[in-house]
């Protein structure tokens, strides 16, 4: 039986454990995407008219994009809702990969097996990474398929570019949560800092550019690595994506290093 076979090692068991969370994330994103595509497909022009009177800052927060109904739908999905769902997923499970077993007190039993701490961390982190990849892929697939189904023209929207750029930022925040949690042995620290920084950087990136003098500050936030080059219009910015992935790798490295060198709790 497949479920029993998934008990073969830490990697496969973690897939089994977190399959439900991945399914929830995918279904949530499909539902949200369907809502955006259907509403904007039928009433997009009315929304655009309404939003013409919005202050620029408010339009930015809502993710308004290039003045088309399709752009409004895609930016709502990829700049607002998909980051919300994917960051929750990656930050929560990133922390759990680092200290979930330690906090639930199953680690002593698990580590009575001949496993390195790092093996457990790498196995679980790989599942988070795989989960994020699968969720983004399925979201992209869902968006493209549904848009085609309802006849929404996405030729002006670089959905693939936005998906890939979003992936980089989600991995970065997941790694931040993982690294901090592994370092201190506390999920609270990892989740709190990563989620707080995500919210803060979102608002800094969307609101500050309205004020000319402060516009450059937005470039210092992690969110800029995703939205700074407007991937929905311009496609993937390889430099920003590379920076996000390098930072993520460094944070993972710090987490793995410190986890190997601290006392385990419990």
């Amino acid at each position: 039986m497949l479920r029993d076979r998934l008990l073969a090692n830490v990697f496969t068991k973690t897939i089994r454990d977190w399959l439900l969370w991945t399914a929830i994330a995918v279904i949530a994103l499909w539902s949200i995407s369907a809502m955006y595509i259907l509403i904007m497909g039928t009433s997009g022009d009315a929304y655009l008219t309404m939003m013409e009177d919005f202050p620029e800052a408010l339009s930015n927060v809502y993710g308004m994009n290039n003045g088309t109904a399709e752009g409004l739908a895609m930016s709502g999905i990829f700049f607002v809702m998909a980051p919300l769902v994917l960051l929750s997923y990656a930050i929560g499970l990133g922390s759990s990969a680092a200290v979930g077993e330690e906090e639930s007190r199953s680690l002593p039993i698990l580590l009575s097996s001949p496993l390195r701490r790092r093996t457990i961390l790498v196995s679980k982190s790989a599942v988070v990474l795989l989960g994020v990849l699968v969720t983004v892929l399925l979201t992209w697939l869902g968006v493209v398929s549904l848009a085609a189904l309802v006849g929404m023209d996405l030729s002006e929207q670089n959905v693939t570019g936005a998906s890939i750029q979003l992936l980089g930022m989600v991995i970065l925040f997941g790694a931040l949560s993982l690294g901090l949690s592994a370092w201190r042995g506390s999920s609270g620290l990892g989740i709190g800092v990563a989620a707080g920084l995500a919210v803060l950087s979102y608002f800094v990136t969307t609101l500050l550019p309205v004020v000319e003098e402060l516009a450059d500050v937005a470039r210092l936030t992690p969110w800029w690595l995703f939205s700074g080059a407007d991937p929905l219009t311009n496609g993937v910015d390889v430099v920003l994506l590379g920076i996000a992935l390098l930072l993520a790798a460094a944070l993972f490295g710090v987490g793995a290093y410190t986890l190997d060198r601290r006392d385990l709790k419990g």
Partner: protein
Amino acid sequence: MTTINGVAPIKTEGLTKHYGDVKALVDLDLEVQEGEVFGFLGPNGAGKTTTIRSLLHFIFPTAGGASVLGLDVASDAVEVRSRVAYMPSEYSLYPKLTGAENLAYLANLRGGVDNGYVGELAERLEVDLSRKVSDLSTGNKQKVGLIQAFMNRSELVILDEPSTGLDPLMQQELQQMIREVREDGRTVFLSSHSLAEVERVADRVGILRHGHLVVVERVDALKRKAIRRIDLEFDEPVEADAFASIAGVRSAESRGNSVVVSFEGSVNALLRAAIEHNVVNVNSREADLEQIFLDYYHGNGNDVA
């Protein structure tokens, strides 16, 4: 000393662990012999679990070091754990998995175990492995934990407070399982705060107090050292001072026509002093190992570490 290829199953040298200002373990020198059941006794917070967690490299010592089966616990941690079975004092199994699934997972991580033996252990401990762990009572969860420790037939079995939550019958079964490990030539390191638990199966005991090892002794030798009590009843009141100065007497107290004497060693001198009076009755009590244990706990024993 009996060892595996000249190395002790467990050996610590100056093992020390501080948590800030708290000295959880101080300069522990300990050597466990192959094929013995070693009882590691001490009250809660004495440093027993800290010792075990150091041996398994879950925590880093402040000073000193340790080897298990001749392997350095820090640099060879993974190999140590491949040859050691461990049951922690506080742990959680995976609640959404059944007992059998928990054991299958842990067995897979070790490259598999004899499933027939797992079934045999489950039968002996009377636990239903088909139920989800979240549905099991504390005692039954403990039994699943015990099975995972015994199913590997490891060279060294480390048990930390293993009888917690077990009823008396199951405690007896556990003691039998521990004896079988010893009969098989393997070694058991049994940590407990209960002397009664350890006394029944251990060959030697080490007593830990406030992080210090205060004594390592064979259980039978410890019993010989036990302070015994004797009630001497006379036909009239007798001064306790008449006995207090006799060699081996720890204390003497008059109670009406009786004198209650606590002593260690030979009873001859005490009886000779008693028959100088008119003895009506003599009532001797069993050696009280519990008292020795408490004496060491409270710092009244002779530190021989």
